[in-house]
């Protein structure tokens, strides 16, 4: 089976400084909704190159009415998914959003999605904007 996955093509830095972006997103994947559903998820690695902690408290997208930060856990063979308040990236460290772990849950998509823009905020402060284009992935 083929799952269409949207990969990042452009990455706009946030909180710009002369030494490069303090927050960097790599290995970004955004799945398109599974057939028959309207929910998809996004994964990426966030790296904090600054000396200060970075918090991401909100993620939005023009293509999705609602995006929540979720974490899947499996304890004693029971899978649970819970909303978490924020993504915290310590100075000099990376945080991996991955399958079966922390991820972005994206709901109520627009009818036709050519590209996806994700906007990462700390409160009302925009930290980062990223744009994706679709690509097919064989599993």
């Amino acid at each position, binding site marked *: 089976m083929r799952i269409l996955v949207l990969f990042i093509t452009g990455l706009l830095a946030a909180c710009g400084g002369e030494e490069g972006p303090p927050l960097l997103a790599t290995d970004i994947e955004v799945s398109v909704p599974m057939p028959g559903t309207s929910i998809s998820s996004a994964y990426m690695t966030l790296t904090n190159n600054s000396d200060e902690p970075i918090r991401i408290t909100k993620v939005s997208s023009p293509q999705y009415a609602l995006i929540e930060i979720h974490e899947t856990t499996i304890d004693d063979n029971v899978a649970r*998914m819970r909303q978490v308040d924020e993504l915290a990236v310590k100075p000099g460290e990376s945080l991996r959003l991955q399958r079966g772990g922390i991820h972005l*849950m994206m709901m109520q998509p627009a009818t036709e999605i050519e590209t996806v823009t994700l906007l990462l905020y700390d409160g009302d402060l925009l930290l980062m904007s990223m744009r994706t284009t679709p690509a097919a992935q064989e599993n």
Partner: protein
Amino acid sequence: MSLRNLILAFVLGAAMAAGIWAAINLQRTTAQPTTATVLPAGPEIAAFSLLDHDARPIDESIFKGQWDLVFFGFTNCPDICPITLQILSTAKQKLSESGQTPLPRIVFVSVDPERDTTDKMATYVNAFGDGNLGITGDIEELLKLTSGIGIYFEKHDSDDEFYTVDHSAVVIVIDPDGRFHSLFGAPHAIENFVHDLPLLMAY
């Protein structure tokens, strides 16, 4: 026979014996499932009345006649459910390419029958390949199926429009007699199924 020949014969004999012992033990080691837990006397699947993804009424006899890999989840689950079904689908594809027969059927049982209509289930299970079976229906009947094999599920944030469902993440193996044969604990990996399934299905 000289003493030297006698010693040589003894050494050769000992080496042969060691070789045979090693071969037998090696065979024993590789012939065991490494991930799946086999139930010594697995129960028959309890009687239930649900719907397949084509909205046809089904009962417990749907599990007779083939090996089934059964996973419980819901179509609005964006993470674990599609990942697990993709793992099962890829494992089945790999087994097919290696000439394995029989091949198991992949069964996805909804623990969210309120939202998972038969239409939704049909679209969903068909996205993971041909020959898959989706099951949904009345929740009371679903509980008859799940409680007999230790599957847990519970709605979380049930007042929320976008509620999720906590659920067992194991993959249940049902044998062609309709008995709960074995199970794979989570997290799952393609190679675990590729390794263990031919051994389980040869039992």
